[in-house]
């Protein structure tokens, strides 16, 4: 309870400082004009009003829907692909040795620069944003599953074999559960990246979505709307992360808890 109130205090201090320092009625101490601070950094009250206006008029729902669909598709497809390929390469030493340098190269590549290519391949609609988000999510999940499969305890594996598990059963009852804890660790990272894929894609070329709204507002130097978009995205990324956390708690009930490592 004490922590929560202190956390709220931090929020209040930051918002208060923001409001105070950007208020045009306060004489400028850094800029030459009292209106400049508000021009560059926006004003929290106006940002808040902008969000209220979006929801009141209903104009935000279409954009929000598009961005969320892109994000979720990238997240789900990227995770599924990462799990499938991760399991495969984790269990096939020859294939993993062959593909190793290429996977390393693809991972090292700053994949956001693929966005223009995806625009050309998949057009300005949803598909190009999903493709970009997919490349971001895929590698994180892939590497974690790959690691998870390779770090299966050899004793647990030998024990399952002695108990009569065949190849399929080893996959289902040993490799997959063992990799699952690694998958969840990676999902928290990849939620944010799925949003990055969607918004950067929209930013570079689209006709709808939150990224599009931010881009439009930036074009006319409407900083308040840019901040409103950022805050909205943050809230939805947090909600998605929370959902992943709930799912994790359900599926990973067997893990010892209390280490407190995931609180930060």
């Amino acid at each position: 309870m004490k922590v929560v109130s202190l956390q709220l205090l931090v929020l209040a201090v930051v918002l208060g400082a923001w409001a105070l320092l950007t208020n045009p009625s306060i004489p400028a101490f850094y800029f030459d004009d009292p209106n400049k601070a508000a021009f560059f950094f926006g004003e929290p009250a106006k940002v808040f009003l902008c969000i209220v206006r979006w929801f009141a008029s209903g104009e935000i729902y279409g954009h929000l829907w598009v961005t969320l669909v892109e994000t979720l598709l990238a997240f789900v497809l990227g995770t599924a692909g990462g799990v499938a390929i991760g399991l495969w390469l984790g269990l096939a030493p020859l294939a993993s040795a062959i593909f190793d340098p290429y996977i390393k190269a693809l991972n090292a590549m700053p994949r956001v620069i693929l966005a223009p290519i995806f625009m050309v391949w998949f057009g300005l609609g949803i598909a190009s944003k999903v493709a970009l988000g997919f490349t971001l999510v895929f590698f994180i999940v892939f590497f974690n599953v790959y690691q998870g499969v390779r770090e299966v305890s050899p004793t647990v594996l030998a024990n399952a074999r002695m108990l009569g598990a065949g190849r399929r059963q080893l996959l289902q009852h040993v490799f997959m559960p063992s990799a699952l804890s690694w998958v969840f660790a990676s999902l928290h990272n990849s939620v944010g990246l799925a949003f990055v894929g969607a918004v950067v894609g929209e930013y570079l070329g689209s006709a709808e979505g939150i990224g599009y709204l931010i881009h439009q507002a930036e074009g006319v130097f409407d900083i308040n709307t840019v901040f409103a978009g950022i805050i909205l995205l943050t809230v939805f990324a947090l909600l998605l992360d929370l959902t992943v956390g709930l799912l994790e708690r359900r599926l990973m009930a067997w893990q010892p808890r209390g280490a407190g490592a995931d609180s930060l």
Partner: protein
Amino acid sequence: MNVPSLALERITCRFASADDPAQPYTAVLDASLTVQAGEFVAVVGPTGCGKSTLLNVAAGLLAPSSGTVRVFGEPLNGINRRAGYMFQAEALMPWRTALANVCAGLQFRGVEETEARRRGTEWLERVGLGGFGSRYPHQLSGGMRKRVALAQMLILNPEILLMDEPFSALDVQTRQLMENELLALWSADRKSVVFITHDLEEAIALSDRVVVLSAGPGTRPIGDYPIDLPRPRDVSEIRLESRFVELHSRIWHAMKQEVVKAYLRQLSPGRATAE
């Protein structure tokens, strides 16, 4: 009509050495071991002498470089389906409850679920964990986890039990309780047992026969001692009997040289150690 349950015939195991691929490391050299039906054989040897290697060969988890394993007369190919294995390290699936761990073998063999659960619950009760079926391994103590592992192995009713220092991680009191429990379960239907340990007292207290292995590399049996102590035994009390002390000093005398050899080898630099 006296086919041994398990016969290791002239087993040799070589491994590629990490620091010198041209010179393979020979863990086990020309080792033979026979276990009769219903016989409890303890295998003792100094640390790092390839005891586990020998057991993995018997389990079919490791194919020997040369030699044959016979299970009830049949040459072994792949996993030894007639054997159960109890490991030294934690071998329970941490994502399964105690009950689901005990039932795992039945599930892998396609036994119907309610039937598997019924037998699993029965076995948990038999190892004294009646109320702990829904606990995950990390919620159980080390001794309890060993009990679950024991039930997990015995539920499949294997004809041969392979045990690799199963109780070495437990404290002395828990260990003696587990040893007595093992003897009680074993005497009910007298399966063949190969029990690996580095503790000579444990070996004598439990077994019908103690086999002493030489120090590695190139481990092989160098001594075979029948243990004529009466059963049923209490492992904590039998250690005080004069016959026990006599057997102990006799076998220890043979073992000592190998233990010293193994110890000196560990001290000498640049040599790979098995295990």
